[in-house]
């Protein structure tokens, strides 16, 4: 999801359900992607990354999927917990940009108990 001004896209899920947060990136030359989680009043925290030579990578309760054909990235959170409530940002990078990450607008995840 991309930001639309002051109103972040919001995903509301029930505790225990799986969550899927989507991101469309802009540059077909991007070769590195990161998901960050930002809780209220805190800086973004690294969750998981993936390089363009992969289409899936798994972490603890999280999976990132990369579809280069349609320039789409998704973050899947298994068994969503109240502590997962936060704003999630995707970021992309490409080799010629050094380590200059370009961030998406963010999606707010709300977990209902």
């Amino acid at each position, binding site marked *: 999801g991309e930001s639309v*001004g002051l109103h972040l896209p919001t995903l509301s899920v029930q505790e225990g359900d799986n969550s899927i947060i989507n991101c469309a990136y802009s540059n077909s030359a991007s070769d590195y992607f990161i998901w960050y989680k930002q809780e209220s009043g805190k800086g*973004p925290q690294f969750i998981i990354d993936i390089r363009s030579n992969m289409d899936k990578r798994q972490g603890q309760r999280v999976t990132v999927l990369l579809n280069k054909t349609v320039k789409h990235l998704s973050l899947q959170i298994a068994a969503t917990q109240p502590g997962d409530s936060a704003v999630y940002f995707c970021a992309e990078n490409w080799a010629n940009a050094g380590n200059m990450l370009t961030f998406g607008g963010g999606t707010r995840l709300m977990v209902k108990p």
Partner: protein
Amino acid sequence: GAGVSQSPSNKVTEKGKDVELRCDPISGHTALYWYRQSLGQGLEFLIYFQGNSAPDKSGLPSDRFSAERTGGSVSTLTIQRTQQEDSAVYLCASSFDRSTNEKLFFGSGTQLSVL
């Protein structure tokens, strides 16, 4: 330190005043970045430093904004003659090396409010 440290955590100032925001990166990290985050928005790149190279200032919104990094470590972001539209969270991040794909580690930010 163990993480990126920013100070102050909150700053309230009057329109027209100058402010200085400080960032202590993770020890050993050669790359340092400043981002701005307005309420409910994504992250807007401002400036980055890599070692002793000239900084990339391409994201600075106006000449009222400047930053320096002394001794390749601590960085200060200065906003002169602050305006209400400068109100935002200013985030600092560092990484080990800018030349490769490296994840950035962020501080908790400075919440700037210009009255």
